[in-house]
């Protein structure tokens, strides 16, 4: 049976629940990207928070919190096979319990480790390279990450800019987090038109650009190395590269 879920993490965990309690899954797919196959039947699964909770508790208690985090990060990745990778991992992991993560290079465990590592690397990178501009007192940042990492950034920035209002906008996924006064929420956002920067904002941006250009020691020029650290696709939204 192919199980289809709504794209949420709870939805995915609900499908895992049905895999164990009802009928084995041949695959798990997001509804909107599902291509019906000739061989397998499919069923659309309603997300059920209680069933999801049962699965997440089982992961934490019977495997480990470390495994749970890896699964969640893997879910946030843009890997097209992520659901089946997670399912295969869990089938293996419920057998080996809290020893599972010691099988680092096992074929059922390695993909989870590698995908999760990619996601956490991207999170760490964006903690640094996300750029805000001050639009009438509100800090606004836009970016297009490879993976769906918006939710993993909020804790850091909510602490860093605790007494500011800010918005982080994922342009690829048309959603944003808005934060004000210790509260944040995820909202859907369509296109935001090119913003008009104030005189002061332009001044600060120019100071930063000048500082950035000036910091490079010309005797040590090494743009290949620079490209390794800041790939071209990330530069689009970085003030200093314009």
């Amino acid at each position, binding site marked *: 049976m192919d199980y289809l879920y709504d794209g949420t993490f709870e939805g995915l965990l609900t499908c895992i629940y049905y895999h164990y309690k009802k009928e084995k899954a041949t695959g798990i797919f997001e509804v909107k990207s599902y291509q019906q196959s000739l061989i397998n039947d499919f069923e659309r699964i309603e997300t059920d928070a209680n069933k999801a909770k049962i699965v997440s508790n089982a992961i934490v208690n019977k495997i480990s919190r470390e495994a749970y985090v890896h699964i969640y990060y893997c879910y946030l990745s843009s890997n097209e096979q992520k659901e089946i990778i997670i399912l295969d991992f869990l089938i293996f992991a419920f057998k080996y319990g809290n020893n599972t993560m010691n099988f680092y290079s096992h074929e059922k465990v390695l993909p989870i480790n590698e995908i999760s590592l990619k996601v956490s690397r991207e999170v760490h990178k964006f903690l640094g390279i996300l750029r805000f501009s001050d639009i009438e007192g509100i800090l606004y940042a836009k970016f297009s990450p490879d993976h769906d990492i918006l939710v993993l950034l909020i804790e850091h920035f909510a602490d860093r*800019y605790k007494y500011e209002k800010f918005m982080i906008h994922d342009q690829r996924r048309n959603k944003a987090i808005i934060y004000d006064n210790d509260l944040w929420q995820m909202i859907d956002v369509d296109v935001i038109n090119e913003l008009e920067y104030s005189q002061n904002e332009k001044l600060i941006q120019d*100071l*930063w650009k000048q500082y950035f250009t*000036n910091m490079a020691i010309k005797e*040590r020029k090494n743009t*290949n190395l620079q490209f390794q650290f800041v790939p071209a696709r990330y530069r689009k939204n970085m003030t200093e590269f314009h």
Partner: protein
Amino acid sequence: MDDNIFEKLKILSDAAKYDVSCVSSGVDRKNNTVGSIGNAAACGICHTWSADGRCISLLKILLTNDCIYDCKYCMNRVTNPTNRATFTPEEVAELTIQFYRRNYIEGLFLSSAVEKSPDYTMENLYRVLYLLRYKYNFWGYVHVKGIPGASNDLIQKTGMLADRMSVNIELPTRESLSLLAPQKKVENLLKPMALINHEISRTIDDKKHFSNTPRFVPGGQSTQMIIGATPDNDKTILNLSQNLYDRFNMKRVFFSAYIPVISAPNLPAISTMPPMLREHRLYQADWLMRFYYFKSEELFTETEPNLDLEFDPKMMFALRNMDKFPIEINKASYEELLRIPGLGVTSAQRIIRERKNAELSYDSLRKMRTVLKRAKYFITVKGKYYGNINFDPDRIKDEVRQQEIQKQISIFDLV
């Protein structure tokens, strides 16, 4: 901020950019003061990379480049006719906050030329930090220079506001120092280091009894020296860093390849290229000392007081100590694993973890993404040697050279 802020920022960041440290790590602080901005992440965060491939994490500036000293290697020396500028404390605070709000930087690295006297300069640095912390409520990362010769009292109260403090050792030997920076005395450089170290341990001790005691430079102290301006060899340099780590609990000792900015009789000619590969090798060796349980003396022999420029220091060590190899992956201790060329901390940890379950095969090493390019010549897996050539240093060198020719690694693009 007025228009000449551009000019000031240009002059005063120009003068600071040769300072290598850009580290923002080592302090984990949540934003817990009402109305304040900023936190500090223990892992450190790089915000961008400039065209030389170096990371930018902090706003790195001098408060002033007006200097009373005449150090031969420095472009701010009093006898050099260069443009002079001085920031007001408000300008520094305003720049830091505005850059920080836009997530350009993780904090401030504030240094200064010695204007009028060490005490006068240190006092000014203290003022900036005080303003930043208490008027602008900034609790991001701050690294400040300790000025040799300033009074204990000033260094002490500045350190209470900073995350890291550093005093530059400048050059590797007493002779080099007296040749190029005759007004600086080794004793004057070591004194504030000892004081900083003492204050750090004192506040850590106090904290055991009084949990509210503020920490003195919680990110520790660091220092740096110039490489290649004087004929000192790598052995001298690394023995000195080992000493600094041991005596003052340094978090980091930085090396800075000398870039000829001025010509002077005792200095390399202006056209000399900075010894960047050598600097890179020194950092690799420094890494071995800090994370791989190597001692500096192990890296050198009577006849070889310098690191090998062609091979990285761990490879060099292995080639000179073939009797300690090959190492069996399934039996070696963590410390032994770390001695294998090409094998890092992550790989060693993965090996230890995974072999609890079953003996490792060569293939599982590959799946773990262990870099085997060099390692394969120095290991056995389940007793089998995978180097495919005789276990002989010259043969191994030849093989590795062949690989290099096929795939030039990026560091050689530097030279």
